[in-house]
């Protein structure tokens, strides 16, 4: 914008004028200036053309089925939150009881090693999966999505 155009207001008011957001006094000042100043008029016309191009742009939208997810309800979150500790507690109790019974009934060292080794292996695998799931929960953006 040439400085010699004689404008007595901040250039940003031209954008305010374009957007129709100026108070009456400023709007009048800008309008009167634009009547006399060709360079400011050219600038406003150019900005208006770009604004109109942006305003009338149309974009392809994703189909509705991509939006089929909704937020899961509070009750489902509570049920899930209570359900997992119950399942884990049940698994620990049942496995612990089975190991105890097996230990009591086995008569030699090999049987006891097979029992403890098998249950420990299964327990470690379960723990590994559980830790992975807990870690993923912290970063999974879809954890609250209900399909």
């Amino acid at each position, binding site marked *: 914008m040439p400085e010699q155009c004689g404008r007595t207001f*901040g*250039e*940003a*008011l*031209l*954008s*305010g004028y374009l*957007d129709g*957001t100026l108070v009456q006094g400023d709007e009048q000042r800008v309008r009167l200036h634009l009547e006399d100043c060709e360079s400011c008029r050219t*600038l406003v016309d*150019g*900005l208006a053309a*770009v*604004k109109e*191009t*942006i*305003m*009338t*742009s*149309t*974009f*392809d*939208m*994703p189909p509705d089925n*991509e*939006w089929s*997810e*909704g*937020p899961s*309800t509070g009750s489902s979150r509570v049920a899930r939150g209570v359900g997992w500790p119950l399942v884990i507690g049940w698994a620990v109790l049942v496995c612990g009881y089975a190991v105890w019974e097996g230990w009591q009934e086995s008569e030699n060292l090999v049987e006891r090693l097979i029992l403890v080794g098998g249950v420990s292996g299964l327990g470690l695998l379960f723990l590994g999966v559980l830790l992975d799931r807990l870690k993923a929960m912290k970063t999974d*953006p*879809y954890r*609250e*999505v209900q399909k």
Partner: protein
Amino acid sequence: MVESPGLATFAGDAGGSDQELVDQALAGRREATETLAQRHRQAAYLLALQLLGNRDDAMDVAQEAMLRFFASLGTFDRERRVQPWLFTIVRNQVRDLWRRRQRRPGDGLSEAGEALTRQLVDLTANPEADLRRRELKQRVWRALAALPAAKREIIVLRDFHDLSYSDIAQVLDIPIGTVMSRLHGARQQLRAQLQAGGRHA
């Protein structure tokens, strides 16, 4: 397909103001939640697309923003409008994505500009006018994608999403008094970029 600024409603909108729907959603009415989601998710997607330039990333960001929007419904200030609040979440999600990928907002802009222009569609039946208009729109959106993020977002919020200056101030977390000057600076830079592009073309 959505044309700005016709984002306020969707086919099958049951009506009611956003504030009424927020109250109903908080009271546990599932239909109110669905209506709010359907009314605003397209705008959330478009803003994410215009800031990121990538359709898949925009969809991920918009989905996550909608989930956070509903998760924080209880703290929503009823005096405010829903859309600026949702846009604030979208903008934060976009910035988080850039941070996670350790990218600056300006990285990969030429690809983003190309990807964004591929999502543009025309609705008129005049092929010749369509071609000219499409080329102009492609030039403008490519130039927009090449602007610094702060300038791109203020133009998109005002000129595409038709947000008021006070809504823009809320989304960008800046004083309302600086919106006009920042917007004008951004428009000037966009215009200069288009003129430079026109000379090189």
